């Protein structure tokens, strides 16, 4: 797995989009996102303690990219459910909730001309985030806050990437 690690970036999706020529499945991982964002420019609070990464996807049909976006939420929820014995709720298409509060956000961005030229899927998971600002504490939570357990971010990253690769292979066959 090719991982480009950063201490801090504005956004892993933005960084990935700047990496012209990077191979498909390159992962951009950052400890912090200064300006993490979701769909329609919504902010994604990204302090140290969370798992923030983007994956450069192989070129695909726009329909397949939409499918992988939706399946990514299932892959994240499945990983969390199996590893922590909790019941995550998938709020399609882009969020995973735990106990009614947001734990993961997913954003796929494409660059399109006559065809899809570049695609990146960004995933932010509140893994070991210790606390949230007042305005977010009713709508966001972390796995550590809910389960009391420390999350192995690299293990979770690997499981999600493997899941994405397997599903992408299946849907683009």
């Amino acid at each position, binding site marked *: 797995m090719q991982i480009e690690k950063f201490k801090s970036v504005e956004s892993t999706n933005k960084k990935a989009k700047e990496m012209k020529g990077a191979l498909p499945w390159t992962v951009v991982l950052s400890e912090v996102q200064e300006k993490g964002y979701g769909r329609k420019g919504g902010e994604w609070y990204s302090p140290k303690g969370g798992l923030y990464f983007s994956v450069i996807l192989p070129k695909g049909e726009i329909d397949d*990219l*939409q499918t992988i976006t939706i399946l990514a939420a299932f892959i994240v929820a*499945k990983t969390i459910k199996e590893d922590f014995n909790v019941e995550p709720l998938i*709020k399609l298409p882009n969020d995973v909730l735990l106990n009614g509060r947001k734990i993961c956000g997913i954003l796929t961005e494409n660059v399109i001309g*006559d*065809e899809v030229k570049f695609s990146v899927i960004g995933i932010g998971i509140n893994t070991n985030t210790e606390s949230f600002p007042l305005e977010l504490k009713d709508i966001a939570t972390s796995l550590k806050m809910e389960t009391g357990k420390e999350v192995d971010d690299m293990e979770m990253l690997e499981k999600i990437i493997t899941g994405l690769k397997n599903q992408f292979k299946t849907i683009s066959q």
Partner: protein
Amino acid sequence: MDFKIKIKDKEYHIELKEEKGGVKVKIGDKEFAFGSKKEKILTQSSSIKKDSSKKEIVSSLSGLVTSVFVKEGENIKAGQKVLTLSAMKMENEIVSENGGKIKKILVKENQQVKEGEVLIVLI
């Protein structure tokens, strides 16, 4: 594997099964299969064959224009980002295949566009 999902405040019960060559998703009584059969359940869109020699930027998907980055009369380069389209639950940067001067911008921010619709005309 069983899941509950929430779409616009309504909860659905989902069963997700990985089967040979694909994934089967059961929502209530309905089953949807993704996989080698290439069944397209989530969208009906097809790719539009565009004529690159014609200096028009055409939308290849239906969606909402969220930002326009260029102005009429502006000279743009091939590959330049001209607008963003929020579509199919993804954010899409639309780039021009051709360089040229922008004659007409036919859409504005917060406008819904259809697949195949001309967005920008170049000279």
